[in-house]
């Protein structure tokens, strides 16, 4: 089971100055930045996925700048993602259309032909057909029954596009694997979609629209699909949001899945944003500590605009919180005093009001307890990844992109190791094989070690 990382220009400045909170002198974004596989010293995934919606273009405004999007197509995905080094040459690069970026449209803004051209220009190794998301999932429906008129319309669009996409990519055979995307409103309809894709000649199918589904619903779909497609048909789960439940997906013989969840959780999840593996092969989650930038945090700016907090005061609280945390990390400050200083500043940023105006709020207490656990356990000391080793406590500070993304990249490393360890992957002999009993010295010896708890 391959973990494919869905990228969205997730790179960091390797020379970022954490004490002054400044980018390295003369840094050019993207060019001087490092992708996860560059900063970690190994690829914490088995491939990357780039969505056409993220690249952007005339139809959908993406995340790339116009000049970057043009260059992506010109030089190709591998060179753009800097996976053109010998050690990454074998990593596949998947493409999809990013159906969520156009789910409100009547039909997809892309044609199978221009999508094939996009994949061909950018030299993707794998690419998904042009699908259209179907909502209103109902797992109680049997077979091909049910489905609104709109759902059935989208179902047909998805399959017609898949058929045209196969023809449009026929000339790329040998250097490109087309993937037929399954959309449906029930396990049965998905199975029907899969059956029809197989009869078109697809041997690699991608299950789409799973983001709003519960893990049990996705499993029901996979079971129904597996029942109708040949044993050798490969399955991919697109945009797999239930990444931390991946260990329960073994029975469905998934070839690959893509997710961005371990990275995103580092700065989108309120609680579980720092991953640490346990000795039993599971994940443990910690809450990163918020020390936002006093003059840039939108909630704090709002408080300043309303006049309830002075910016000069915020700047000094920010300074104190950072100083306290660093002293604590050096063993020069006590846990309780550190926590008080940190909470006084974090509370307004999290709850949008000064601490005095939040008397006994349960939320503050909970926050305090989560921060206490993070500080007293010092998980960053238990991880030997390049990022935690270099950053120490900074990695658990929830503060601006360079810390948050680094924490996310650390999470990718932990997660990748977890996936490698799954029974489904136990027979694979990857260079990044997880080894829970390797000594510290051995781990330091290769940079392609994994973040593992030294407990």
């Amino acid at each position: 089971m391959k973990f494919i990382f869905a990228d969205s220009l997730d790179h960091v400045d390797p020379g970022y100055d954490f004490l002054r909170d400044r980018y390295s002198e003369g840094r050019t974004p993207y060019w001087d930045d490092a992708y996860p596989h560059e900063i970690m010293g190994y690829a914490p995934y088995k491939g990357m996925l780039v969505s056409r919606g993220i690249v952007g273009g005339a139809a959908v405004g993406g995340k790339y700048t116009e000049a970057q999007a043009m260059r992506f197509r010109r030089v190709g995905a591998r060179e753009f993602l800097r996976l053109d080094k010998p050690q990454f040459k074998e990593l596949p690069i998947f493409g999809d259309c990013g159906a969520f970026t156009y789910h409100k449209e009547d039909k997809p803004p892309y044609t199978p032909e221009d999508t094939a051209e996009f994949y061909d220009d950018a030299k993707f190794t794998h690419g998904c057909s042009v699908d259209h998301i179907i909502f209103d999932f109902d797992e109680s429906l049997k077979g091909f029954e049910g489905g609104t008129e709109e759902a059935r319309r989208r179902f047909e669009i998805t399959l017609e596009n898949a058929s045209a996409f196969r023809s449009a990519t026929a000339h790329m055979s040998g250097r490109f694997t087309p993937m037929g995307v399954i959309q449906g409103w029930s396990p049965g309809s998905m199975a029907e979609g899969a059956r029809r894709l197989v009869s078109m000649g697809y041997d690699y199918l991608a299950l789409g629209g799973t983001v709003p589904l519960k893990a049990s619903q996705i499993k029901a779909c996979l079971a129904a699909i597996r029942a109708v497609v040949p044993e050798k048909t490969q399955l991919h789960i697109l945009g797999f949001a239930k990444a931390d439940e991946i260990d329960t997906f073994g029975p469905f013989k998934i070839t690959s899945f893509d997710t961005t969840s371990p990275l995103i959780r580092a700065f989108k999840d309120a609680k579980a944003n720092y991953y640490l593996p346990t000795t039993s092969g599971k994940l443990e989650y910690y809450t990163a500590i918020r020390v936002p930038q006093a003059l840039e945090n939108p909630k704090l700016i709002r408080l300043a605009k309303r006049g309830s907090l002075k910016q000069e005061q915020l700047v000094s609280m920010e300074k104190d919180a950072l100083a306290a945390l660093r002293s604590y990390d050096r063993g020069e400050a006590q846990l309780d005093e550190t926590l008080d200083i940190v909470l006084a500043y974090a509370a307004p940023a999290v709850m949008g009001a000064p601490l005095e105006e939040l008397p006994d709020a349960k939320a503050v207490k909970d926050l305090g307890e989560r921060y206490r656990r993070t500080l007293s356990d010092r998980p960053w000391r238990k991880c030997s990844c390049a990022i935690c080793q270099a950053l120490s406590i900074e990695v658990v500070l929830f503060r601006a992109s360079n810390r948050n993304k680094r924490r996310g990249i650390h999470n990718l490393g932990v997660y990748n190791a977890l996936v490698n360890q799954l029974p489904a992957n136990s027979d694979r002999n990857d260079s990044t094989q997880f080894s829970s009993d390797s000594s510290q010295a051995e781990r330091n010896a290769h940079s392609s070690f994994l973040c593992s708890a030294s407990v």
Partner: protein
Amino acid sequence: MTALNFPAIRARQSETHTVLSFAALASELQKFALIERVARDAEGALSGFQRPQIAGHIREIRDYLEKPEAILPNPIVVAFTNSVKVKDERPDGRCTVEIDTAYGAPGLVVDGQQRLTALGQVEEKDFQVFVSAIICRDDEELRRQFVLINNTRPLPKSLIYELLPTVAGLPRRLGDRSVAAEIAARLNYDESSSLKGKIYQHTNPTGIIRDTAIQRVIINSMSDGVMREMIREPDGNDLSFRLISEFYRAVQFVFRSEWEEHTPKTSRLVHGAGIMALGYVMEVLALLDGARTWQEFSRGLACLVDGTAWTSGEWNFADSDRRHWKSIQNVNRDIVTLAQYLIGIVRADVKRRRSTPTDASADPKPPKVASAT
């Protein structure tokens, strides 16, 4: 010792206000001048007037101030209503100003709050700045001064860009624009340029092609295209200048009747959208064909001749997307659509030429543009 004394000079401007100028250390300023940000109390009464600080702007000023050659000739404007005395005034205006800080800072910063905040963050040196002090009758008058002073009109962008190349030590954001502006200016004035006199600039209002459009082509190429490597060569500026000049010479040659005597209103070729979209075509030809001269670019552009609608007719972007020639606007979406359409044709032509044996001999493998890594 709560009184601060400064030798000052008074300017006679108004019978009702006192206006003074003096120099003070940033640390002293922080003792006698407050930044009152605008806020409302529980009853909705307005107090203060300054907007919140803009972190990026402050950072830029701070970076500058940390340099040894930094100067800050324009004053921080501070208004007072009380706690200020003018002493020992001489007929020529020289005097001493005494500020009493016993009850906190009596002055309010009317202009220069971002500068003052940045000054406060420069730890290595205590900078002396000019202070223009206004002594106002009351708070209302003080707020009026704030509005008057801050209601200035920014300089036109086009003039700023044109001045940029003559200014050193700019923040990075302006630094890239500066190189682009320099090359664009050279394209407009160099005898050998194919665009001589054709670019609109503040100093060349009769130019046809928007300076910002040609600058965008240059900026894009420097950030993600062929000029990124080129500009680092010892003669990088010359190479880059020649590349752009040669490319648009080819454009004029291939689309002669749609270029000559036209304005952006009569031809989309000389319009911002056409200029910028073609900039991306230049990148493709430079990469896939290794094109550098106008003849090489012309050969790559020739395949477009029958597929364009610069001055009439319609663009056939897709079966479902046909556009009247005039509907192409200077917006990203149109530029990208147009560029993708043109690039599609050009790429197909490059492929065809490569696979044709007769052409292949005349067309040696293009030099691969070095990757950035």
